[in-house]
């Protein structure tokens, strides 16, 4: 899941080198922490949070396979 978000985020931003993804598992929840360059925050969030929403939908689908919950946190 980490790789998935990393791949998507690097494809969207202007500064792919600044993309960092952390994966933390708490009980049955997988928390993905995404850090990007400040200028790229808007790119991974998207208009009305659409991009973030779409990434979350993908995560939910992936996590659902192993009946886990997922959370995507975009770090500032």
């Amino acid at each position, binding site marked *: 899941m980490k*790789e998935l978000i990393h791949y*998507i985020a690097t494809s969207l931003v202007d500064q792919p080198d600044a993309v960092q993804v952390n994966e933390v598992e708490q009980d049955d929840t997988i928390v993905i922490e995404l850090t990007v360059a400040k200028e790229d925050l808007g790119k991974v969030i998207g208009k009305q949070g659409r991009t973030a*929403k*779409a990434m979350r*939908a993908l995560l939910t*689908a*992936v996590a659902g*396979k192993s009946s886990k919950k997922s959370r995507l946190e975009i770090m500032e």
Partner: protein
Amino acid sequence: MSSNTKEFQGKDIAEAIQNACNSLNASQEDLNIEVISTGSSGIFGLCRQNARLRVTLKGENISQEQQPVSEKKARTKKTAKSPKKASRKKKPRKEVTAEPKETLAENNNSEAPHSEHKEYGPEFVSAIQEELLKVLQLMGFPSEVSILQDGNSITGLIQGDNIEGIVGHDGKVLDSLQYLLRKMLSKKLSEKIMLSLDAGNFRASRMKDLEKLGLKLAEEVKENGKTKSIPSLNPSERRIVHMALQEDKDIRSRSVGEGLFKKILIYRPGKGKRNSQAKRRKNKQGQSAG
């Protein structure tokens, strides 16, 4: 800049252009017009600012590219106020004068620029296929992907054993994937692509389902006159329902809500709050158009 460049002012862009035409004794088509400031009417006539233009006779050496852009900007601002002016312009504009029925216009934005026919090269297609495969593999849903081209829209067809997971509830995952891929690819290929994704025959069956649902609700509305609604549909899905109900004169459908996902109301025209709202909206549109 050449010596033939002159500046003109006017209370708005239209007037400034008119001034320019009069004093240079030329028609608007023969002028290169660069808008310096669009001016503002101020508040209660206070703080009024004139619109300023820089005008050159055509055939002079001035950067032609700048001109249509700035002129277009000015026009879009002005159309509401001076429609006559706008209609007099002869140059064809690419702008889609899209103010027709909301029901039809809703998802056309993804299909509107069909006028320019364009084929994508094989490197394009393989890039799309690669990207899609890569994301699917990272998601843990390895599948087969084939790319179909139809005019200038591209469909990525996903097949395999994981379709159910990829489509998700009501196609939410598939739509998200489609949205993200569009973004990623348009960044990578620095060109906008009309990409849509399909898994198995999900889109076709979804379309049928929605049409059926719409028609079923329409029947119920006709029977007892109560307004029915379908919750949270995305633009293309709403379009399907509106199209299915368009022919039926006994009922109307429209979208309500904010944001991407709106719900559809199916109702019987007649008295009632909803209809009066719709009427009011229509009147408003009529005013702004004429």
